[in-house]
């Protein structure tokens, strides 16, 4: 797979599944993984030079240059933080139709479905521009193997002077990116304090899962804000979401309700989250979680 993130592969696969012509993939900095993107349907990989710290203004202008030169109809990008920064700028530069949070391929009428109102609803949108920019929701599309081969292409682009200087980077490294994780274990106020997060992390280790938290937990700085899922945090769509000690306020549900299977563990049987769950365990997290972790370990 080289160094290409799952989100990048999903974007290439989405483009291939549109069946709308040739697919060109762009890579910036490192160009390993050409085989991986070729396999899922890109016929060309445009290798762009390293631009240093990710500056969306710089990068979007370079992507727009490539898109204009190659006269592409549709730019597909992941709806990550970086993608959400890039997509509107590219759409502006190309005078293209824009849809972020995209969760479907275009239908026969050229309409797509996108999440709106912080994930509380979906809208069917027809994009009328001759050019389109689509930011696709991570974990929404399968990566389909087409077994094709691709050619590497170098392109001359003008890289503008950035207006942003990086002072400090606080990046959580070595962890599975939350939006790409297949399994997410999330903890809420019911865990009583940051010192108890070992419970969540042990379970996450067993399931190869990413860890997340509710808004109060990040507000109280028990956990970093980058783990906060919900309306004002990150929207996730894992195959399995396990919520521990989270009551399930509508703002939290907005960020997680698209998860394929939701398991809720809460000692309060009245917790509203149970209404939005596929499976529920009524019990004290401090009893249930160690037993669950133990059972998985012995399995």
């Amino acid at each position, binding site marked *: 797979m080289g160094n290409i993130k799952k989100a990048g592969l999903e974007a290439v696969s989405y483009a291939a599944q549109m069946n709308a012509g040739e697919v060109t993939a762009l890579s910036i900095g490192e160009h390993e993984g050409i085989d991986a993107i070729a396999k899922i349907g890109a016929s060309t990989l445009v290798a762009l030079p390293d631009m240093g710290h990710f500056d969306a203004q710089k990068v979007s202008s370079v992507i727009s240059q490539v898109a204009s030169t190659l006269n592409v109809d549709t730019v597909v990008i992941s709806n990550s*933080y970086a993608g959400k920064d890039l997509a509107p700028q590219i759409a502006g530069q190309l005078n293209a139709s824009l849809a972020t949070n995209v969760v479907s391929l275009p239908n026969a009428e050229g309409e797509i479905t996108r999440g709106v109102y912080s994930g509380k*609803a979906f*809208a069917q949108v027809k994009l009328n521009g001759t050019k389109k920019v689509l930011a696709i929701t991570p974990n929404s599309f399968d990566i389909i193997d087409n077994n094709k081969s691709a050619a590497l292409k170098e392109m001359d682009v003008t890289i503008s002077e950035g207006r942003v200087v990086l002072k400090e980077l*606080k*990046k959580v490294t070595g962890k599975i990116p*939350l939006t790409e994780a297949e399994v997410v274990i999330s903890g809420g106020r019911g865990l009583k304090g940051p010192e108890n997060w070992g419970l969540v992390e042990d379970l996450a280790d067993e399931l190869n899962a990413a860890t997340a938290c509710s808004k109060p937990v990040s507000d109280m700085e028990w956990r970093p804000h*980058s783990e906060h899922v919900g309306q004002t945090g990150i929207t996730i769509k894992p195959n399995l979401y396990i919520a521990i000690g989270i009551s399930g306020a509508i703002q939290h549900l907005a960020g997680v309700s698209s998860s394929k299977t939701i398991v809720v563990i809460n000692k309060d049987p009245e917790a509203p989250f*149970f209404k939005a*769950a596929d499976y529920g365990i009524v019990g004290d997290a401090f009893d249930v979680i160690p037993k669950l972790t133990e059972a998985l370990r012995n399995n």
Partner: protein
Amino acid sequence: MGKATIEHDIDGGREELEVTLPLVVSAQKDLCEPRIPNMKSIMQARMKPLNVVPAIEVTQQSEYKTYDLPPAKTGVLN
């Protein structure tokens, strides 16, 4: 030229940036609490000039057809 230092959420973390003004930011909810103006400020606000700027012409590039609620989970325990 003025500069500002801002915190910016990125995939898997946060970065601190120094930016040159003018600046466009999209701010997160709950980032700061709006100030309640005092009586003097409210009175003063009436005296401020109101500049009405004509809207520029734009082409509508997308058309919203329908809105749907996400499929409901069956739920447990009820």
